[in-house]
């Protein structure tokens, strides 16, 4: 370990230090200046983003640099996800601004916990050892539990946090038990060492059980059926910007881990685990989409829709080929931006009690806020996978990967279910454009406008000129795919 190694940790160090500073500020007299917290947080995100970009120069020309005794690595894959995380947290910060100013809860601790969550997510993306990944995941999860219950005088928020905490800790225990079994079989927690040990191994029940437990723990984090029961309640009960964070950032981090662990460590047993994951993916798509149809609460509908999107993304892991890994990266990005845009619109309508939560609130929105209504349509089409939006590109990669890998039936399920999902996405469009009515009043602050505009730009740019993002994604994932091809 040298100073150069420590420099690779710089983004995480900055995030952790910044989070600690945000904690101290209110004690030093910042309590009264709660509105400053947002700017401090955005500055922290900007510095972190610069550090992430800077760390790529430190590893230029090298595929991967495992440091700290192969616990932590900076590579193109981790940089891709870290930049995505920083952007997500910055956008969630913007989403939170008005929401926090309505209530009297402290803003500094709120942003500090978000920064700690970011730190955990970055360790998840950079972890090349199961123990680093696990502890990063726990840091993210603990911050999320607290944030979900941040509005402790609201009964729903407390209930959501309690449910999330209890189910989350059980799933963490399951994940940890899986890791311990894998360690017992392979004698190491390093992903590359595990892969080497498994390549010479015949089938082994204890190992398969370990992999299944690990997958179950991760499926909880991405909210795949049958580990999804917490999702609707938590998304509805948690403060709305935190629901946005849970459905985007937290899921993206879990997918980064899912992809790295399964692509690097377990390709040798692909035949054994892919069928189980295929069943989980199919169930997620079917249950998520069918349950979403019957919802009248928009947040609840988005929760079920996010369950179904976990199913689509799983296709990329099941396929276990170049196309699949690229699909996961690009789909995660596309999904995150479309979702953040939708949450921004919900927050815009959210004033006064429960507005923005029922489909009726969206009635006649195109007259009151034409830009928001138009971008909402684009986001919904993107989630449905309709060209020329970005969602089409993402789904194309995932479905093609599944077909390539011989999971044609799964791709058919996915296409049929995408068609079903258009039904409830279009219900919102109909409410916004065709139904007349008062709906909820709108307060469209500059922050929300910015989040919508940025998400819209990304969704359209990826949809219309996909070459650039696809090239970036290929660069970010080729070193992980290389190993698969070598086998």
């Amino acid at each position, binding site marked *: *370990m040298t100073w150069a190694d420590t420099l690779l*940790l710089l983004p995480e160090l900055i995030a*952790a230090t910044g989070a*600690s500073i945000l*904690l101290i500020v209110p004690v030093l007299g910042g*309590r*009264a200046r*709660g509105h400053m917290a947002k700017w401090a947080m955005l500055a922290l995100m900007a510095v972190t983003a610069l550090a992430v970009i800077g760390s790529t120069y430190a590893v230029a020309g090298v595929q991967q640099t495992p440091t*700290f*005794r192969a*616990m*932590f690595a900076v590579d193109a894959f981790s940089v891709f996800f870290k930049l995505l995380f920083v952007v997500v947290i910055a956008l969630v910060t913007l989403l939170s601004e008005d929401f926090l100013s309505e209530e*009297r*809860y*402290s803003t500094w*601790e709120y942003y*500090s*916990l978000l920064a*700690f969550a970011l*730190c*955990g997510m970055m*360790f998840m993306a950079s972890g090349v*050892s199961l*123990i*680093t990944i*696990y*502890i*990063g995941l*726990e*840091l993210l999860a*603990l*911050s999320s*539990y*607290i944030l979900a*219950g*941040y509005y*402790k*005088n609201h009964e729903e928020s407390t209930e959501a946090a309690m449910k999330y905490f209890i189910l989350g800790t059980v799933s963490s225990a399951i994940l940890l038990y899986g890791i311990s*079994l894998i360690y*017992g*079989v*392979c*004698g190491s927690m390093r992903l590359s060492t595990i892969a080497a*040990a498994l390549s010479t*191994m015949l089938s*082994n*029940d*204890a*190992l*398969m*059980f370990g992999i299944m437990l690990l997958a179950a723990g991760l499926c909880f984090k991405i909210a795949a059926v049958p580990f999804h029961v917490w999702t609707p309640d938590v998304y509805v009960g948690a403060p709305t910007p935190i629901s946005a964070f849970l459905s985007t950032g937290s899921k993206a981090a879990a997918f980064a881990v899912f992809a790295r662990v399964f692509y690097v460590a377990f390709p040798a047993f692909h035949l054994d685990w892919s069928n189980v994951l295929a069943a989980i993916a199919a169930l997620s798509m079917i249950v998520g989409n069918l349950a979403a149809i019957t919802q009248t609460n928009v947040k609840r509908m988005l929760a079920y829709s996010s369950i179904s999107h976990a199913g689509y993304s799983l296709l990329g892991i099941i396929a276990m080929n170049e196309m699949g890994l690229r699909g996961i990266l690009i789909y995660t990005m596309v999904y995150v931006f479309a979702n953040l845009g939708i949450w921004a619109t919900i927050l815009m309508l959210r004033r006064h009690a429960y507005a923005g939560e029922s489909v009726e609130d969206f009635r006649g929105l195109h007259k009151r806020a034409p830009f928001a209504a138009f971008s909402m349509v684009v986001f919904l089409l993107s989630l449905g996978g309709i060209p020329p939006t970005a969602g089409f590109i993402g789904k194309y990669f995932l479905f093609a990967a599944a077909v390539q890998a011989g999971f044609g039936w799964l791709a058919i399920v996915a296409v049929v279910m995408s068609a079903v999902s258009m039904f409830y996405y279009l219900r919102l469009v109909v409410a916004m454009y065709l139904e007349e009515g008062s709906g909820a009043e709108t307060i469209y602050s500059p922050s929300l406008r910015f989040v919508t505009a940025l998400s819209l730009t990304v969704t359209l740019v990826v949809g219309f000129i996909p070459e650039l993002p696809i090239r970036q994604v290929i660069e970010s994932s080729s070193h992980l795919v290389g190993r698969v091809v070598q086998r």
Partner: protein
Amino acid sequence: MDALTASIPLLVFVVVGTIAVASSILVVAMRNPVNSALFLLLTFLCVAVLFVMEGAEFVGAVQVLVYAGGIMVLFLFVVMLINVRALPDDRILSPYWTGGAVVGAAVFVLLVALVRPGVYHEQNDNPLALRSTTVNARHRVVQPDGTTVRKRYTRQQVVGNSEAIGMALYRDYLVPFEVASLFLLVAMVGAILIGKRELGIDDEDVDPQYIVDRVAEEKEMKEAMSA
């Protein structure tokens, strides 16, 4: 006689393990929180014995000092401060408990069936390996042309149990160890955020009603404690 001596570790393991499992079940089954805490103490002590049997004396000692000593005292303090006197008479049991019990039993059978016959990586037969760490060292090599070159090499060095753990924590697992400290910080922040009384930004110190309430509350607490 030899057979008896050989089976003593197994016997101790079975007895201590049974006590550990039984007392940990009693922790959640007890009505009175003080009894629960005492059974938790028993669980900690049994686990400490198991650690010592596995050759991890340091972890066993830490288990006794930190968990059985420090954390248990804190638990008991809190339990006695909260002073739960009136316990509800009826047991609160989820109507789904049979389902839970069936799932638990099924998982247990699955574990016995799958985990026991699994093939694991070779055990290290050398007991010293548990107490050794890899050390990076350098030594000078005099080359044929007279110049000296420093060469790096790693060797196994036998050290004490606690030293091996220190080396593992602060070198091999440095990054996860440090992230764990962040984790604890977040846990502490969360506990304070959830536990503290939420007041407005401005009226924390000046609201007279708050101070009146607070005094009354303290008084009540003192009476409850002296009673």
